[in-house]
């Protein structure tokens, strides 16, 4: 696989003459490919984590539609009285935009999934539901509960979606951490490749000295190393990306019950993101090796 890719690349990027005069430098070759591969493998998961938690954060934020419900159960003769009281309390609560009692039809529609379409709303004592819409500035839930308890003892405030708020925040934080990890992985790879390039340059010091003596410019010598390390990083990273993708594919599919963990994968165009990693790794290798080569050449001769 890697060999095939390497040969394809070799044809796409024809060998420089500098490649022929600078001998290959043994063990740093596999070190670079391995590092790029391992780092890309990790980056694929960081990317999956980042994209999945990003999705989740968006989904959960959207779910926080800033709505709440007040459920009112009371004896038949008190219900209208308490309903008026509840609506009065809600109307005077800061942070609440509007409140509206649902009609019987709407209540039935809400309950249908649980009790079926033939629910005899008239005979079963159903709680009245009041839909509350916040205005975005937020309201004091505890205070509202106390006032409702005082004015309409049968009313229960149910701000069911509020628990998701910290979750959405956590998911957003997780996405940030994922992106940060990718950045760190890239930086670690740059550091490793710099070390490998320096070792390779040091091992080739004698050759470099001769090349300088016969009039080679630094850029010419650097190019041989830069080209080599870039190709190694590209092939290693491609292998790592494929391995990482296989790993993600083999994860269990997303299930509602599994929640976040089983949703760790790519969706739609998200599958294209891992393919950005190898060119990115090659770019990192290019920049790191070039900087290392030009600096080390100055030190060597």
């Amino acid at each position, binding site marked *: 696989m890697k060999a095939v890719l390497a040969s394809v690349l070799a044809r796409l990027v024809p060998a420089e003459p500098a490649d022929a005069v600078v001998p290959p430098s043994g063990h740093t070759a596999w070190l670079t490919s391995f590092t790029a591969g391992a780092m890309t493998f990790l980056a694929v998961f960081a990317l999956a984590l980042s994209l999945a938690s990003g999705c989740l954060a968006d989904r959960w934020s959207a779910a926080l539609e800033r709505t709440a419900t007040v459920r009112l159960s009371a004896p038949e003769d008190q219900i209208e009285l308490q309903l008026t009281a509840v609506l009065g309390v809600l109307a005077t609560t800061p942070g609440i935009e509007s409140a509206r009692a649902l009609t019987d039809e709407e209540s039935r529609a809400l309950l249908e999934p649980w009790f079926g379409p033939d629910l005899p709303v008239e005979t079963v004592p159903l709680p009245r539901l009041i839909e509350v819409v916040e205005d975005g500035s937020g309201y004091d839930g505890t205070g509202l509960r106390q006032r409702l308890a005082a004015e309409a003892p049968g009313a229960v405030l149910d701000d069911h979606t509020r628990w998701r708020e910290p979750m959405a925040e956590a998911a957003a934080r997780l996405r940030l951490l994922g992106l940060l990890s990718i950045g760190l992985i890239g930086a670690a790879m740059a550091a490793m490749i710099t070390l490998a390039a320096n070792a390779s340059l040091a091992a080739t010091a004698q050759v470099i000295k*001769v090349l300088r*003596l*016969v*009039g*080679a*410019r630094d850029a010419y010598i650097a190019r041989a190393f830069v080209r080599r390390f870039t190709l190694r990083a590209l092939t290693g990273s491609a292998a790592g990306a494929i391995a990482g993708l296989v790993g993600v594919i083999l994860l269990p599919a997303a299930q509602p019950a599994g929640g976040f963990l089983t949703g760790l994968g790519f969706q739609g165009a998200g599958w294209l993101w891992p393919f950005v990693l190898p060119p990115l790794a090659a770019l990192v290798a290019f920049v790191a090796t070039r900087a290392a080569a030009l600096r080390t050449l*100055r030190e060597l001769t």
Partner: protein
Amino acid sequence: MGEYRAGNWVGAGRPFMISFDNVAYNYGGGELLSDMTLRLAPGSFHFLTGPSGAGKTTFLKLSYAELLPTAGHVTLFDRDVHGLTRDDVAMTRRRIGVVHQDCQFLDHLSLTANVALPLTVAGRHTGEGDLADLLAWVGLDKLSAALPPSLSSGERQRAALARAIIMGPDVILADEPTGNLDWEMSLRLLTLLVELNKMGKTVLVATHDLNLIRQAKSQVPARVLRIAKRRVQLSGADL
């Protein structure tokens, strides 16, 4: 009104290949070479002599910007080496062919590739025929595919000379090119250097072989620079 510079009476303003002005060099353990002033005029032939350790190789390294003087100024083709960037140094070396004391080959490349190395790194190409002619001129045409470690010292020295001149340099510097060659081979190498000088190249040969110098003087008007007491002096004609 001209002035006397090593080798020639020259008119003022005439460009020199290599100029030293009050040059000193110090590896760190005291000055090895001090207060050297001399000019190498185009087309001149010089020998540089002095006992082993006198600083001949150091002098040559100053002449191709491998070392920078610790005092004074070295001027190569009218440019002070202190003002040269690394790229300028590379370009300057393409105009100065050097036969290094230890040849400095790349052992993983064939003789031909080694000889053509200056062209390769300059991104230039030469015809196969030109390269073969050059190898034939130094008598190495049969060995073009050989690797440097398999060559005799005479073959290495001639290959080094071929590499030194492949770019058509203006100046040829040779550091003890006959150091470990027998007399016959030394004469052969000298003949090549004399031929190059007659083609107009400026030649400077570091050697402590006085017989070689005497032999050369019968062929070209060579001058002798001697390093003594840390200074370079123009030697008398009594060799």
